[in-house]
């Protein structure tokens, strides 16, 4: 009792831990997002960089400003705010006004994440909350697609990017075009598959190059960064369901391969539906979730009023996630019956 020795440290067992931590998880996703970002810059030039920066800035500033943790902005260190900002940016059209992109970032983090308590507590995918908000607030701006520029036009920024805050973009004629899905839905014009795969189409920044997304997704699946069941289930469900529709009505409906390659399906399936926070925890739940997303995508694309349904499909399934989790509880060892 006499010798004064340093206090021992009491922690709870287990004392060992697998190396993977949340910030590392986020960094890995960021790294595997990098190729998609580069492709966006390649296809859309400086505008892409501006939009991505604006969205990310909105997300980061909000996270910094609204988290009360003691060193302000400490929660930025986990990297999820940056990830949210980038993913949001990648699903915006290249010509969107920068202030809108920034606002999207603010809404994504503020409304999509922090009101629920921050990282891990949100119920809906923050980036999609941001985008859905923008889409509902500025439906025209967000469905105005501009053509890809050639390399020589790399540094030409789309004039609509520079709209003053709260103001409309100057109307520019002739620049806007339609996405493959819009063309298909409203004009019945399909886009060649090769263009879809290589990204030679109009669309959101990140969604155009299908090939790259698939490759990055495969790497993430192998590295077990996300639950591979989710994207697989989504794509399977889309192929099967749209294949059925197509088989019944070859004229009026898009082919399954078009469905797969077009719009934000691949990007959504790989980067957004897989957000662990807003998807079910259980493997069985992951299947249900993925199939649900796939079915809703086809439903909205084929019969809905909007050309693209990935965002809403994921948001709707996010809403159903607590229920899915509940019905897919693991069974309990020696019980053969899932927990309540």
């Amino acid at each position, binding site marked *: 009792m006499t010798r004064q020795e340093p206090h021992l440290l009491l922690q709870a067992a287990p004392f060992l831990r697998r190396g993977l931590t949340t910030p590392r998880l986020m960094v890995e996703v960021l790294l595997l997002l990098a190729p998609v970002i580069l492709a966006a810059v390649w296809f859309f030039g400086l505008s892409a960089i501006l939009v991505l920066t604006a969205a990310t800035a909105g997300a980061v500033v909000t996270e910094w400003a609204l988290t009360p943790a003691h060193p302000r902005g400490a929660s930025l260190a986990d990297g999820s705010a940056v990830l949210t900002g980038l993913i949001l940016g990648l699903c915006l059209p290249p010509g969107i006004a920068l202030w809108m992109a920034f606002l999207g970032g603010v809404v994504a983090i503020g409304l999509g994440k922090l009101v629920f308590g921050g990282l891990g507590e949100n119920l809906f995918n923050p980036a999609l909350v941001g985008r859905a908000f923008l889409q509902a607030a500025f*439906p025209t701006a967000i469905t105005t697609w501009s053509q890809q520029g050639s390399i020589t036009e790399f540094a030409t920024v789309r004039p609509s990017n520079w709209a003053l805050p709260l103001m409309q973009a100057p109307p520019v004629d002739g620049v806007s075009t339609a996405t493959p899905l819009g063309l298909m839905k409203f004009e019945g014009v399909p886009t060649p598959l090769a263009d879809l795969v290589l990204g030679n189409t109009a669309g959101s920044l990140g969604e155009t190059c299908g090939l790259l997304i698939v490759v990055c997704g495969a790497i993430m699946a192998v590295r077990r960064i996300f639950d591979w069941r989710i994207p697989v289930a989504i794509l399977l469900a889309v192929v099967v369901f749209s294949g059925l529709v197509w088989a019944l009505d070859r004229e009026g409906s898009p082919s399954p391969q078009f469905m797969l390659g077009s719009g934000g399906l691949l990007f959504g399936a790989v980067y957004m539906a897989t957000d662990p926070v807003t998807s079910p925890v259980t493997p069985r739940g992951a299947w249900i979730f993925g199939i649900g997303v796939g079915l809703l995508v086809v439903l909205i694309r084929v019969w809905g009023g909007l050309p693209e349904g990935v965002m809403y499909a994921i948001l709707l399934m996010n809403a159903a996630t607590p229920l899915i989790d509940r019905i897919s509880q693991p069974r309990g060892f020696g019980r053969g019956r899932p927990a309540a």
Partner: protein
Amino acid sequence: MNGDVELTVSVGQREPSPFRMIATLGIAAMLSGLVLATVFQVTKPLIDANKARELRLGVFRVVPGSAGLRKLVLRDGGLVAVAEDEVVTAPAVHAAYDESGTFLGWAISGDGPGFQDTIEVLYGYDPQTRRVTGMHILASRETPGLGDKIYKDEAFVANFGALAIEPSIVVVKDGRDEGNEVDAITGATISSQAVVRIINEANARWLPVLPAEPPPFTGESD
């Protein structure tokens, strides 16, 4: 907050007689009926006038130059002229006349699903030229800024100025050049299509039953 409470509840209070319950309800209902009937009678003329004015305005828009109306309802397979304020459940159209009582055309209404909820459309039809003479949205809940252009966008409404209906009205996206084409509103293709479809459907329903000879103008609806 404490002194002024009159606690009407005392636990285990005896039940009042059923007669009192019935009487209370009966009297309340009777008084209510009295009040309602009175108010109804006072306001009815005003309300009717409002409705008539609105109808006239609408018809004036879709059948330019119209000054008088007659209401016809579908009864036993044929159109029968009725008084404007007659309560009917059968579907109705209006015949429109100019100041001199000359028949100008029909004002037909139809409804159907739009982008959001049901859209109600009133349009004018001139049997002589077999063209739509105008279109007016009676009710819609389309998105402000997009779908609401179906009535806010002059250019779109102008599409229906003299629109051929045969073989059917179609929506195009890249400028109209045929007489039966409507140029879709950019960003609101669905709503545009909905309006056109509603008119087409109403045409299919009404044109076969419209009498070749419109009823004579009686001038009563003013």
